[in-house]
């Protein structure tokens, strides 16, 4: 409340959302939980495992680096 009524109310909403968010993020139940998403969501087309995602990112970075190397050498 020290930071004002508006902030306190927002924090209260946030506290209530915690359980719902956990249901979606940790348990993966998006029917009953709330999933916080960002603008990047529209660009997602698959659900790789962490290990798959890492290898993919590194492979893409290497590919891009080689492309740049070719252009500047």
């Amino acid at each position: 409340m020290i930071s004002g009524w508006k902030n306190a109310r927002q924090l209260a909403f946030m506290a209530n959302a915690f359980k719902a968010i956990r249901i979606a993020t940790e348990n993966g139940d998006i029917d009953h939980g709330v999933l916080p998403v960002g603008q990047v969501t529209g660009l997602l087309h698959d659900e790789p495992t962490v290990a798959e995602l890492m290898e993919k990112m590194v492979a893409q970075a290497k590919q891009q680096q080689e492309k740049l190397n070719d252009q500047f050498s």
Partner: protein
Amino acid sequence: MENFLFIKTRITELFGIKYPIILSGMSWISVPKMVAAVSNAGGLGILATGPLNAEQTRRAVKEIRSLTDKPFGANASLLFPGAAEKAKVLLEERLSVINFALGKGDWIVKQAHAYGGKVIATVVNARHAKRAQEYGFQRAGNRQTIGSTLLQIIYRGYDIRMEKRPAVSFYG
């Protein structure tokens, strides 16, 4: 053409990881299983301690240790209640990396460096970055040492130029 220059960066050297890719400590997302998965895949997982209390933080650290033998970190958002207690748990558990944010983390830097831990300071502007750098100076008094153990995060479009400091950029 195989080019290893990209993979070997100051970040990978600093944290002892394979790829310079870091999982930021996001509440309810950066949970023990996720942290271990990222560290096992060659990156650095950072546990989100925001929704946990001190005891849960300790349990989470132990759970990650049961899932991976790779380096991992945890965050400490100093603004939240109980944050200091959680940070103390992280220091007691001698975490490889501690990521502090939203507060004065000089004591974390000092104690983590004492056992060889690394500290990431989350900053959103150049003023914070400079302040975080000063914590390192207080501790080490040696430019080279700080350069290798203190890290600034570039957050979104803020122009933070920290010469000779490795930096991580997070975006979401």
